[in-house]
């Protein structure tokens, strides 16, 4: 397994991109920033599988934890509520870097 690009604890942004086709990054999280809590492992890319391309490289999948108020500015619950989501590496960028 190659070294993961983002270690646990890294601050990451889920890319704000809107490509057509089969996409695995939930819309409501695109552009949101969170922290890597765990490296899930390496998995095949379902966005390629959807088109019958099954031989491509595996991607590292990260569990990213996002604070609810960072998703929904008007979140009704306490600010320490969180959401955890598994994100393929192609959907992550270092936070602080401007999205293209």
């Amino acid at each position, binding site marked *: 397994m190659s070294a993961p690009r983002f270690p646990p604890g890294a601050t990451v942004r889920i890319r704000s991109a809107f490509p057509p086709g089969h996409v695995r990054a*939930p819309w409501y999280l695109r552009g949101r920033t969170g922290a890597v809590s765990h490296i899930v492992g390496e*998995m095949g890319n379902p966005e390629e599988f959807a088109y019958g391309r099954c031989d491509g490289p595996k991607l590292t999948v990260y569990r990213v934890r996002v604070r609810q108020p960072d998703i929904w500015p008007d979140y009704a619950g306490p600010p320490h509520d969180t959401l955890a989501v598994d994100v393929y590496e192609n959907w992550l960028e270092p936070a602080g870097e401007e999205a293209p």
Partner: protein
Amino acid sequence: MSDSHGHSHPHGPHPFQPDVEDAPLTHYQILQLAVAELLIEKGVFSGGDLRRTLEAIDSRSPADGAKVVARAWVDPDFKARLLADTNAAAAELGVDAGTIPITTVENTPGIHNVIVCTLCSCYPRLLLGLPPDWYKSRAYRSRLVREPRAVLAEFGTALADDIEVRVQDSTAELRYLVLPMRPAGTGGMDEDALARLVTRDCMIGVTLPDNPDT
């Protein structure tokens, strides 16, 4: 009405109650039927194989997950193995959790986990059986990530503000199971009795296991 049955009301057939066949088959239903028929025609598997597979899926139930949870409550070493590798830990109890990796997330006094799949309806079927319809509904899938405490309250689950509600959105090729906290006052119960406290909904995380003494 009694003296003359004058036929002012129609005697035609009664309207049928709505049936599942009333809606036209969707594109994907037709595709699924066609692919299944082709695979059987080409001898990839038989109709009996397909039926047996469906029966195996239908035979799974929350009792499988409850058995795993109850063991984790009474055996801290098992709990550690469950949190490290749920599929392998379930196999120790004779529960086949399948090949899709399942991750168990543990509720603690400070963290309450609850599971959703916003993209579709991923669910740990081999430990919990088929998902309830509400789990697949758009309302649950969209509201749980937006207002989880309001959704939990509708299930009768009120959590103090100092607890972190952690929504787990299953978006990759793995599934989640919630390990609820063992209710207080159950110290004298054996593993089978504990397993009966563990419901499907508390392993999804929308409810808490009932304490039988309260």
